[in-house]
C-alpha cells in the first residue's frame, strides 16, 4: 500500500547558506501516528512546509498519498490538515466566520460547511466562544481553533506542528487525547520536542537532527536502542556509607556503579550477566549497609534517553555521517538498534 508520505533525498537549502533539510528519505505508513522529534532548528517545520508546497525543495521530492507535492499541488493540500505552531488567525473574525472562510477555500458546499462547523467547535470546546472575536482568544483557545481549522475538510492526513506548545496541562491533555482519537482513522504527523507527548500518543517516530533524519521506525524500536541495564537507586543515609556501598558493589562482576547527586546510586549491568542476580546482590548490600531504599527506577525516561542517545551518536559519528553511497538513506530509515 502507498505510504501516506514518502520523501526521497528531500533537501532544502535557504539562500545557499542554511541547510534546513538534509537529504531526507522517509516513509510514513498510512494510519500511523508519527512523531517527528528534534531539537529547535532541526528542520521539522521546514519539512512540513515542503510537504505543503509552501517552500520548494532544493533537491529531492516529496509525495503525499502518491501525489507529488509542490506550490500548485492543490489536490495534495486538500488531503492535508495543517496546524502551524501558534497559528496566526485573523483577529477580526469570529470562529464561525473563520471556519466558513476555510470551508470556502476547501470548496465545501454550504450544506456541508454549516453542520460541520458546529460539530467541530463542539469537539474542540469552543461552542461557548462563537460570538467572540478571535483576537480575544487565549493561546489555548487559538490552538483549539487551529485544530478545528485543520479538520474543516476532514483530511486523511494531519500535519500538526507542536500542537501542545504553550498549552496548560488540561489543554495539553485534551489535545493529546484528541490526537489519539483522530489517529484511529487518519494518518497524523506530530512535530514536537516534548518527548512525553510522543511517548503517550505515537506508534512511529522519526528523529531529526541538523536537517537529517537520524532515526525512523516504530516507537518500540526506538526504545530498544536505550541501554536497559541502568538502574537508579535513591538511598537515604550518610554520604560515606553510600560511597562505601558503591565501592563494594562495583567489585561485583559485570556491575558498574557510581554515585550521582550524593544520594543516588546508578547501577549499570553488562549484557552478559544476569540482571536480576546482579541487582539482587546490590540490594542485599544496601540492606546490609543499613541504608534506606527510597526509590528504584529502571530507565528513568526511556524515550528521552533514547532520543538523547541518538543525538549524541549522531554528533559523535562526525565525518562518518557523510554518505558516500547513494543508498545511504536506508541507514536512517532503519529502526534497528546500533551494534
Amino acid at each position: 500500500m502507498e505510504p501516506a508520505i514518502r520523501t526521497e533525498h528531500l533537501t532544502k537549502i535557504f539562500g545557499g547558506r542554511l541547510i534546513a533539510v538534509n537529504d531526507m528519505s522517509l516513509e510514513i505508513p498510512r494510519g500511523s501516528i508519527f512523531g517527528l522529534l528534534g531539537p529547535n532548528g532541526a528542520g521539522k517545520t521546514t519539512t512540513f512546509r515542503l510537504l505543503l508546497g509552501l517552500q520548494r525543495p532544493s533537491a529531492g521530492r516529496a509525495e503525499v498519498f502518491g501525489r507529488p507535492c509542490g506550490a500548485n499541488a492543490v489536490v495534495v493540500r486538500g488531503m492535508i490538515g495543517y496546524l502551524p505552531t501558534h497559528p496566526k488567525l485573523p483577529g477580526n473574525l469570529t470562529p464561525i466566520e473563520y471556519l466558513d472562510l476555510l470551508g470556502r477555500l476547501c470548496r465545501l458546499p454550504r450544506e456541508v460547511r454549516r453542520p460541520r462547523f458546529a460539530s467541530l467547535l463542539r469537539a474542540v470546546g469552543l461552542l461557548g466562544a462563537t460570538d467572540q472575536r478571535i483576537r480575544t482568544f487565549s493561546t489555548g483557545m487559538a490552538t483549539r481553533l487551529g485544530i478545528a481549522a485543520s479538520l474543516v475538510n476532514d483530511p486523511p492526513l494531519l500535519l500538526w506542528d507542536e500542537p501542545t506548545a504553550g498549552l496548560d496541562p488540561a489543554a495539553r491533555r485534551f489535545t493529546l487525547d484528541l490526537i489519539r482519537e483522530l489517529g484511529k482513522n487518519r494518518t497524523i504527523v506530530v512535530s514536537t520536542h516534548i518527548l512525553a507527548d510522543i511517548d503517550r500518543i505515537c506508534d512511529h517516530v522519526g528523529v531529526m537532527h541538523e536537517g537529517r533524519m537520524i532515526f525512523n521506525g516504530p516507537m518500540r524500536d526506538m526504545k530498544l536502542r536505550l541501554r536497559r541495564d541502568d538502574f537508579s537507586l535513591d538511598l537515604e543515609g550518610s554520604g560515606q556509607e553510600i560511597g562505601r556501598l558503591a565501592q563494594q558493589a562495583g567489585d561485583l562482576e559485570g556491575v558498574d556503579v557510581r554515585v550521582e547527586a550524593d544520594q543516588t546510586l546508578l547501577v549499570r549491568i553488562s549484557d552478559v550477566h544476569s540482571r536480576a542476580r546482579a541487582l539482587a546482590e546490590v540490594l542485599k548490600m544496601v540492606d546490609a549497609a543499613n541504608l534506606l531504599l527510597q526509590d528504584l527506577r529502571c530507565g528513568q525516561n526511556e524515550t528521552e534517553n533514547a532520543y538523547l542517545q541518538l543525538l549524541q551518536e549522531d554528533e559523535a559519528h562526525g565525518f562518518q555521517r557523510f554518505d558516500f553511497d547513494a543508498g545511504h538513506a536506508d541507514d536512517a530509515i532503519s529502526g534497528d538498534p546500533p551494534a
Partner: protein
Amino acid sequence: MMPFLAILRHDLRGLGASWLVRLWLAATALLTLVMTLSQWQATPSAVLIASLLFPYLVFPWFFVVIILGVGPVSGSRSESLADGILSRPVARHEYLLASWLSRVVLVLGIYLTVVAPAILVLVLANRPAPDDTVTVYGILAALGAAALVMTLQVSLGFLLGTLLRKPFLAVVVLVFVWYPINLTLHTFSLEEFSPISLNQALPTLLRQPWRQSEEDQQTETDEEPMGWLGQTGHFLETLAPVPEKSVQQDPTFYDRGDFSDFFLPRVILGYGIPTLAAVALATLCFCWRDL
C-alpha cells in the same frame, strides 16, 4: 471560483476595517469638498473636474494607493497568509489575483464614491462660472482614464511588494520610480502616458463628444488657461527637470499645451498593458517563491 470569491470577500472586509482606508475615505471626501467649494464660482467645469482628479493621479493619494498595493504578499502578512490560506487547497495565482482585485475594487470604489457625486453636482448645478461644454462621454472617459492610472499604481505596488517582500522598501522604490517618470516618458516622446500630462489633457478629453472625427479633433483647439492645475503640473515638472535641448527639438503633445492629439485608446493601452504585465509578473514571481 469559490476560493477566489472567498479570498476576495475576506480581503475586502479586512481592508474596509483598516484605519488607513477609513482615514483615506474621510480625507479624500474632505479634500474634494474643499476643492469644489473653493473653485465653485469661477472655474470652468472641465478644469474643475480635472483638478478634482489631480490628487488621485499625482499627489497625494498615490501614496495611499501604493501602500494598499504592496501589502498582501509582503512583510509579516506573507507568513500569516501561508499559515492561514496558502496551506489550504488554494492555488497561489487564485490568492494573488483575488488580493489584487480586492485592492483595485476598494481603490476604485472609494475614488468613484467620492468623485462621481461631486462631478454630478458640478455638471447639474447652475454655477456662476463661465460656460463649458463638458460631455457625458468626456466625463466617463476621464473617470475611466484616472481609474486606469490608479489600477496601474495598485499593480505596480503589488509587483514591487512581491519582488522586494519588504513593504517600506517597495513604497520607497515606487516613489522614486513614479515621480521621475515624466523625464523618462519625455525622452521617448510618450508624455501622454505621464499622469501629470494626462491630468493636463483631461479638460480636452472632458469636452470631447462621442465619436468625434479625427479631423474635428485636429481643428478643435483648447486655448483655455489651465489655472492652478496647469501651474501645479509645471511645478511638478520642475521636480523632474527635462533636458533643455530635447524640449526645444521635440515640441509635441506635452509642449504645445493644447492636447488636441489626445487619443484615448492609446492612453488605455499605455496604462493597460503595463498593468497586465505587472500583475502577470507578480503572479509568476509569487508562484515560484518560498513562503
